């Protein structure tokens, strides 16, 4: 079964498709990284997936239930979410907040199960000592942890987390990564958005890259990087070297940073590059073949930096 499916999902704001014909499929039990620069449409997609905002077109299915029909509540009950940032009643303690959200959904068996898990989830996010403090007095990282605790409270089959490591210290980030990995290994589906490539790369089974509301790439982090390689070359005269290489067949592109050039190859091999430079009279002090990182792929996919919108 698939945990989350979107078909042709579109959201238009002021005539612009902020999410544009998005087709996503997140399988049961996988840890899916949803990557994209600021303004790419990640949060908007997540809001539609959880039924908070209505799509301009297309559809969403969460745990097999169409989001904008009757079965949605059944699906939402089995889902935990962190949307954009955590939000709590500031005048209540962390523990009482979890209690309030547990009870708000009704007072049956399900609410009781959530109530009985409060200590456990506080422990899981390392918040046990601060559970009885008012949220007013929490640091940003503590609020973030409480947000994750709330998402975990219902022992969800699907976790939808929008930038869960936002505001966490490095140790906290690592804890969260390990926690998500552990949950996914235990069968929970985790859909996590991020702009932190390194984070997504080390923990996710599959990554989708969103740019201007469109999915521009998708696959396991390893595949996404592909076999693409580039050469890192240190030379005495970078301008001359660039001119020589531009004339060489099988070179796809050259970027320079001072005396270091990054040469993307498309057919040529490192030996040919070296030979061409040396015969052209350029002193080569270092030549290393490097695999493209996810960052390289990402930057080329999302076309530069800055806010999208």
């Amino acid at each position, binding site marked *: 079964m698939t945990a989350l499916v979107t078909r042709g999902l579109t959201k238009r704001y002021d005539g612009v498709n902020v999410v544009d014909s998005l087709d996503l499929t997140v399988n049961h039990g996988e840890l899916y990284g949803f990557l994209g620069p600021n303004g790419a449409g990640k949060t908007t997609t997540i*809001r539609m997936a959880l039924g908070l905002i209505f799509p301009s077109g297309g559809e969403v299915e969460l745990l097999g239930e169409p989001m904008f029909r009757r079965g949605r509540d059944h699906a939402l009950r089995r889902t935990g979410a962190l949307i954009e940032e955590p*939000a709590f009643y500031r005048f209540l303690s962390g523990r009482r907040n979890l209690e309030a*959200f547990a009870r708000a959904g009704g007072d049956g068996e399900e609410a009781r199960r959530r109530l009985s898990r409060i200590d456990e989830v506080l422990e899981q996010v390392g918040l046990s000592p601060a559970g009885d403090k008012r949220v007013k007095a929490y640091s940003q990282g503590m609020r973030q942890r409480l947000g994750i605790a709330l998402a975990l409270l219902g022992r969800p089959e699907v976790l939808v987390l929008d930038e869960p490591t936002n505001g966490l210290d490095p140790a906290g980030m690592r804890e969260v990564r390990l926690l998500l990995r552990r949950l996914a290994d235990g069968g929970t589906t985790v859909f996590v958005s991020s702009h932190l490539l390194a984070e997504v790369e080390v923990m996710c089974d599959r990554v989708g890259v969103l740019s201007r509301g469109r999915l521009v790439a998708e696959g396991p982090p390893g595949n996404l990087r592909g076999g693409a390689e580039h050469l890192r070359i240190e030379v005495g005269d970078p301008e001359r070297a660039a001119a020589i290489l531009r004339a060489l067949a099988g070179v796809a592109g050259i970027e320079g940073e001072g005396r270091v050039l990054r040469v993307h190859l498309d057919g040529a091999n490192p030996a040919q590059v070296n030979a061409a430079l040396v015969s052209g009279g350029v002193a080569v002090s270092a030549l290393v073949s490097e695999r493209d990182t996810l960052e390289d792929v990402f930057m080329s996919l999302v076309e530069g930096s800055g806010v999208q919108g």
Partner: protein
Amino acid sequence: MFRVELMKAWRRWRTYLLAAALGGIPVLIVIAVKLSPPTSADSGDAPPFLFQILRNGLFAPLTGLAVIQPFFLPLAAGLLAGDAVAGEAQAGTLRYLLVRPVARTRLVLGKYGAAMALLGLLLLWVVGCGAFWGGVVFGFKPLPTLSGTTLSVAQASLRILAAAGYILLGVSGIAAIGVCISTLTDSGPGAIVATVILGITSEIVDQIPNLRVIHPYLPTHGWLAFTDLFRFPVEWGGMRGGVLISAAYTAVFLTVALVSFSRRDVVA
């Protein structure tokens, strides 16, 4: 939803401030009357009940109700109903309630129910504070009605509770308007202020003779009819009208709130 709302109110300073302000009013009245017994000469511009409170502690809760109604009641309705959904939106907790999930209909109705319950508790609190301090300072005696007959202490107490009940029904329309405004904005204070202003404007318009044609349709028009409970025999006409108007406002504005909220994008 409803129970959680009461739990939240219980742990909020605001609730106690409101209770202190409202409960303090009958107490202030008792103190004021005790310190400077009004003579019949200057009772002309004092509220009608104020003169007789001197002789009877039962007047304290009744005067308390009459005094809080024009201003503090719309204020309380604004704070409780106006903030109901908008306050959650502003805090960001609205989206977490909706994905919990709390059905949108249940959320709006639960919020309205909780606001009404708290308004009812506040009114009881005012009656309680007035009865306690009025009783301690002046003692209870049979209550003269506006028609010259008297009510026994037990009968009068029942009528005072009935008056509180009628006042609660009277404010239900304003509370529904408040909840409706609350679903349309993400600003808690904005919705509170809008609700209070609408309530008070309605009362002001109700005082302008030139606008007499619309008076019967104002949500606050029937508010003072609770005094008819203290006539002999009781005149039901004014109160029946007041209840009908409140019911109409409640039905219309709750429907608008439910419909608009059910298709609104929740981005806050």
